[in-house]
């Protein structure tokens, strides 16, 4: 068993920032991560980091933009804290040596970004995330922070009180991928989950293969509610075979979208008569899919993004990176032919419910980064707002877990924050096949930290043993089924029938999962095993997403419902919450907080 004051699970931007923060407070902190830190998906971010740095800009403008962007589903305390802390965090990155792009006077450059009223996006070329990740990992090395890399966290060690709000998290259990060893990690002060996105619930995503929503699933099963899971952002231009992102810049420069009949469908089919290709992400994504669904897709799958008319010179000057991406990942020469694109899952706005200090309703359990939902992004995330979120809330979680005195959070967490029960009628029973059987809060009255940890370790050893020893089907089939139905039914377009179909398919997949087994008998670097466990997590988050989507009968931000074509502010300015409830998920609602420090945000029509 390993023991530290603070255990940070995940070493992307959020995890690293949290670990450095805890270290700053003098805590003994360790990072436990299934990938070496520099392999985290934060490295893939291209665009930039928002922060109000310049004179003429201010944190409240940033907060206002963020609230508006969230379509009034963000919580004001989270948004205000975020906008206030972001500038210092970004400058701190600069002090840590991040190679930001510069102005002539040597200051950090800032550029305009969608949905921002001021050019406040700092960036480092088109590789902002890469530089952020590496700069922060380097600072972690400088501080000698312990890293357990290629250790896969499989479960949280939580006491088994009935009410999740009484539970305490004492650590987690992890599996050393290289040796196959299973160990308990005891956290004296707290565990911070920073496990990133859940894009692998979909079969077409800009997310990494490792983004399987492990943190969400583990916290969910441990009793922390999931918040606004239905809010998934889809990006309209990703490469069909890999999901690699083709930046909005192509359309910004004048790139045109064509269907198979070579029609400029954004105009010709009236999706956006004014803005055309430059309409907002969700509009374009829906237009593309409509084309494909109506049989006008190229190879019935995608549409073409053409930039040839821009001329070689301009392309090389401003979009060179895109040429490389299309060439390397799709085998297409953008100077010669149009590039195939289709919408892809991009970001999860929802996640583990937590407050401004990263605390969840379980004592000693924190969440930060994409896996968390402080509710900063609400129903729609603005470009460039995720990276500063990692910094701001990563740091806050780290500081708090290490014992720093901080302002009491205004956001309420846990089932006690419920304002009304949910009403969702799933066509099949959601949740665990055999409710209560594999919960973290295991049977027995373990409360004492060591005992909690030991019993969780034992449980995980059993799970691994069974998976390897038994005989069954390959998880890959189950995973593929989940991804397929999610992309088919819980995509950009959501109909009641589709969502119900998805829940049925997920149920079937869950039953199938009961029969999975790991074929590879080896304890050495058994990725078959890891992926099999991940698939379980994918199932849990996919179901949570779908349940939320079925419940929310309105069109808000990224969430579009065929039967409900408008934003219903009277009824739906509330968060959809999902409690695992020992395997029988329960949906309820929690109010959105619109009273900010400076003003109370008034929901307005979101148009740009």
């Amino acid at each position, binding site marked *: 068993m390993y023991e530290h004051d603070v255990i940070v699970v995940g070493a992307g931007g959020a995890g690293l920032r949290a670990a450095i923060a805890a270290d700053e407070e003098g805590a003994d902190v360790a990072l436990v991560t299934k990938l070496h830190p520099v392999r985290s998906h934060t490295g893939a971010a291209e665009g930039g980091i928002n922060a109000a740095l310049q004179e003429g800009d201010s944190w409240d403008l940033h907060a206002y933009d963020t609230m508006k962007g969230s379509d009034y589903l963000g919580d004001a305390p989270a948004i205000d804290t975020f906008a206030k802390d972001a500038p210092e965090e970004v400058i701190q990155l600069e002090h840590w040596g991040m190679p930001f792009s510069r102005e002539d006077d040597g200051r950090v450059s800032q550029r305009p970004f969608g949905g921002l009223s001021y050019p406040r996006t700092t960036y480092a070329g088109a590789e902002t995330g890469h530089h952020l990740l590496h700069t922060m990992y380097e600072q972690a090395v400088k501080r000698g922070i312990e890293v357990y890399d290629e250790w896969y966290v499989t479960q949280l060690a939580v006491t088994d009180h009935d009410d999740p709000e009484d539970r305490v998290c004492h650590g987690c259990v992890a599996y050393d991928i*290289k*040796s196959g060893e299973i160990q308990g990690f005891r956290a004296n002060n707290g565990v911070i989950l920073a496990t990133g996105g859940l894009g692998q619930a979909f079969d077409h995503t800009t997310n990494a293969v490792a983004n399987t929503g492990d943190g969400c699933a583990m916290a969910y099963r441990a009793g922390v509610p999931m918040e606004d899971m239905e809010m998934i952002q889809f990006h309209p231009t990703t490469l069909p075979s890999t999901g690699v992102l083709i930046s909005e810049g192509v359309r910004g420069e004048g790139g045109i979208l064509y269907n198979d009949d070579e029609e400029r469908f954004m105009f010709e089919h009236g999706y956006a008569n004014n803005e055309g290709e430059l309409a907002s992400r969700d509009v374009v994504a829906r237009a593309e899919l409509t084309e494909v669904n109506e049989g006008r897709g190229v190879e019935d799958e995608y549409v073409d993004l053409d930039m040839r008319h821009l001329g070689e010179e301009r392309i090389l000057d401003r979009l060179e990176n895109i040429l490389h991406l299309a060439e390397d990942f799709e085998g297409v020469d953008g100077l010669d032919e149009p590039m195939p694109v289709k919408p892809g899952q991009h970001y999860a706005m929802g996640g583990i419910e937590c407050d401004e200090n990263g605390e969840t309703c379980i004592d000693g359990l924190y969440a930060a980064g994409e896996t968390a939902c402080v509710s900063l992004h609400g129903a729609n995330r603005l470009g460039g707002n995720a990276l500063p979120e990692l910094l701001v809330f990563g740091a806050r979680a780290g500081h708090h877990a290490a014992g720093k005195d901080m302002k009491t959070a205004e956001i309420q967490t846990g089932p006690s924050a419920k304002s009304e029960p949910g009403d969702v009628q799933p066509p099949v029973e959601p949740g665990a096949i055999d409710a209560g059987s594999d919960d973290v809060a295991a049977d027995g009255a373990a409360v004492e930290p060591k005992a909690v940890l030991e019993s969780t370790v034992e449980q995980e050893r059993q799970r691994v043993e069974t998976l390897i020893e038994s005989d069954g089907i390959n998880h890959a089939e189950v995973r593929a089924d989940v991804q397929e139905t999610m992309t088919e039914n819980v995509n950009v377009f959501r109909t009641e029938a589709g969502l119900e179909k998805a829940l049925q398919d997920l149920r079937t997949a869950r039953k199938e999962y009961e029969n999975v087994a790991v074929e590879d008998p080896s304890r*050495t*670097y058994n990725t078959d095993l890891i992926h099999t466990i991940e698939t379980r997590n994918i199932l849990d988050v996919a179901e949570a997403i779908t349940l939320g989507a079925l419940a929310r009968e309105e069109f808000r931000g990224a969430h579009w419902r065929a039967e409900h074509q408008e934003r219903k502010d009277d009824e739906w300015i509330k968060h959809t919450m999902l409690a695992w409830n020992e395997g029988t998920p329960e949906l309820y609602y929690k109010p959105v907080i619109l009273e900010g420090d400076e003003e109370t945000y008034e929901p307005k029509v979101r148009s740009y």
Partner: protein
Amino acid sequence: MSQSYNRGTVEDFGRWREFTAGMWAWIFHKFTGWVLVGYLFTHIAVLSTAVGVDPASAQAGSDLYTSTISGLESLLIVRFLEVGLLAVAVFHILNGIRLLMVDLGVGLESQDKSFYASLLLTGAIVVASVPTFLGGKLA
């Protein structure tokens, strides 16, 4: 801990087919360098016959030094070896110049081309010198 398997020499020179220009240049430079040191030692050894030559026999051209050298030079094989030595030396010089340029940061992008150029030039110089080396009286 997992033990691991060492793939041994396959990894090094078993892969020569996959080497690129810079690698070949390195190998050739190494090889020619070693030949040159080898030669340097031998050369001094041969020249050592000059020690203790008495002036009289030198006048007659029958001293050990003169006769050793002309003796060696009368062997055709030695003449061929000398051509080889020339090739080795010329390549080492030309590639040495290439390396000095690399050290100075000049023309790094065309390092492969300069290597091929060294090879070609070496070939040309050697071919051009063959008559001189193999010519001259053998006896």
